[in-house]
């Protein structure tokens, strides 16, 4: 983990309020684990004060290029959309513990379930799983057809199902409606990222072990300030600890490990 002024390579709005930002810099060379995040300083100075934790969507380790996909939520992310090629963006990372891709063997099947802006970190994971010869199935949930992004990219890596709440594209309903239709033995492991109600529903519907990625407002991003803790479902048998830090123990946890 290092702090670096990365350079903007490109930025585009790929769906309403969803932006893809490509950054170039040395720290991208360290980003080998999917599911980690970077802590982004939108502007130098004190306004906005805090960094923004953004998940890593894709990395070209050799060419030192990082891709982030984020949603405009407030003033900070709005300012980030104004960055143009050549501008500097201060990045602290990579941070946190990501998705374990290595737990699956060749020819096993992973199902990836993403909702909205929780989808991006699953892309780098999908690429790594495919590189390991793991079969990847993906279920991506959106509100409406216009919100859909990364469909082509995921489709290139494996079977991809789109769900929309209003039925304007793919299956009408939620990702869990599609997930529940999968027969037992259809998958060996699931990985998921999205809003909390979705994560809860996925965890309940799952017929296999899996991993979930959480989101929370953060301070330091490295586990010192305790802004982003969550409760363990069962206290740690070794340390007796009752909580986990989302920024440094997570953001990825084994399904069932923490209270969502």
């Amino acid at each position: 983990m290092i702090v670096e002024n990365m350079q903007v390579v490109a930025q585009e709005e790929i769906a309403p309020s969803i932006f893809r930002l490509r950054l170039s810099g040395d720290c991208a060379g360290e980003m080998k684990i999917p599911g980690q995040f970077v802590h982004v300083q939108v502007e130098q100075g004190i306004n906005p004060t805090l960094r923004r934790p953004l998940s890593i969507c894709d990395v070209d380790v050799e060419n030192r290029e990082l891709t982030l996909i984020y949603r405009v939520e407030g003033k900070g992310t709005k300012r980030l959309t104004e960055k143009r090629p050549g501008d500097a963006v201060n990045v602290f990372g990579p941070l946190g513990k990501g998705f374990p891709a290595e737990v699956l063997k060749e020819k096993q099947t992973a199902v990836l379930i993403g909702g909205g802006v929780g989808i991006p970190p699953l892309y780098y994971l999908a690429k790594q799983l495919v590189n390991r010869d793991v079969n990847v199935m993906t279920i991506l949930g959106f509100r409406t057809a216009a919100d859909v992004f990364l469909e082509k990219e995921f489709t290139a890596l494996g079977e991809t199902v789109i769900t929309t709440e209003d039925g304007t594209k793919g299956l009408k309903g939620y990702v869990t409606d599609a997930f529940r239709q999968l027969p037992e033995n259809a998958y060996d492991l699931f990985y998921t990222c999205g809003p909390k109600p979705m994560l809860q529903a996925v965890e309940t519907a799952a017929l296999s072990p899996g991993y979930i990625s959480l989101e929370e407002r953060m301070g330091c991003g490295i586990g010192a300030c305790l802004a982003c803790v969550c409760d363990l479902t069962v206290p740690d048998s070794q340390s007796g600890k009752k909580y986990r830090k989302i920024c440094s123990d997570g953001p990825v946890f084994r399904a069932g490990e923490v209270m969502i």
Partner: protein
Amino acid sequence: MNRLQVNLPGLSMKNPVMPASGCFGFGQEYAKLYDLNRLGAICVKAVTIEERRGNPTPRVAETPGGMLNAIGLQNPGLQHVLAHELPWLEQYDVPIIVNIAGNEPEDYREVAKAVSQVKNVSAIELNISCPNVKEGGIAFGTHPDTAARLTELVKAVSQVPVYVKLSPNVTDIVAIAKAVEQAGADGLSMINTLLGMRIDVKSSLPVLANRTGGLSGAAIKPVAVRMIYEVRQHVDIPIIGMGGIFEVDDILELMMAGASAVAVGTANFIDPFACPKLIDQLEARMDELGIATLSDIIGRSVSICSQTR
């Protein structure tokens, strides 16, 4: 001669910069980024007798030039800190200050007694100013007599100097400062966060799960400068100054107002290398301003103003 050296009771500091309690855990996370021996001192997170789970999330919210936090004194408890966190810090040759908190006066006494006997603990910071817990914390820091009684109690058992961390959420901070000085405090830490609140206009609900939280960051620096300046005129014990330090000039400003050392809090979250960077930049700025040694400027504004009045 080390121009950055400052000396306070129990604290021989090679530079005046320490991370502020609560912003640095027990040092283990930042130790992955730089050598903690570069710091003037380390002030660790508040320790209570029992383990504390803290408040529900969200625990932080951003504000212009600052942030609100309501962590709620989450910590692993006295026994864990004695067995793990403090021994881990023995590898560093830096004064360690342990911030202590509790619900009842007796809690403070017990933690102070135990912590002050640990060989690598140089001082105690008495937390009577946490705004984010229902019991204890700020309840002890808003009335001069209550603050004085707690200070006496802790002083009676502590083997190391005691710094009382003052709350800015009071009408007359000087009265509290005088009271704890008379009660035997070796120094003061000031200021803790200012109580604040934010509301999400989409939901009409407070942003923080705790509803209110402590405001820190650049926005509160003028309050810190003013309060340190006022207290410096009326008490003789040294002050560790904190509140919105982001730049080298902020350190100098708090010291000129009367602080003998400073603590950096929120800035660590924006730049994890904030403390060592500020330390590295100090001498060049002192040269520009013609400051020979840092100890020369402690309370300089107070003395100049008192001469010209």
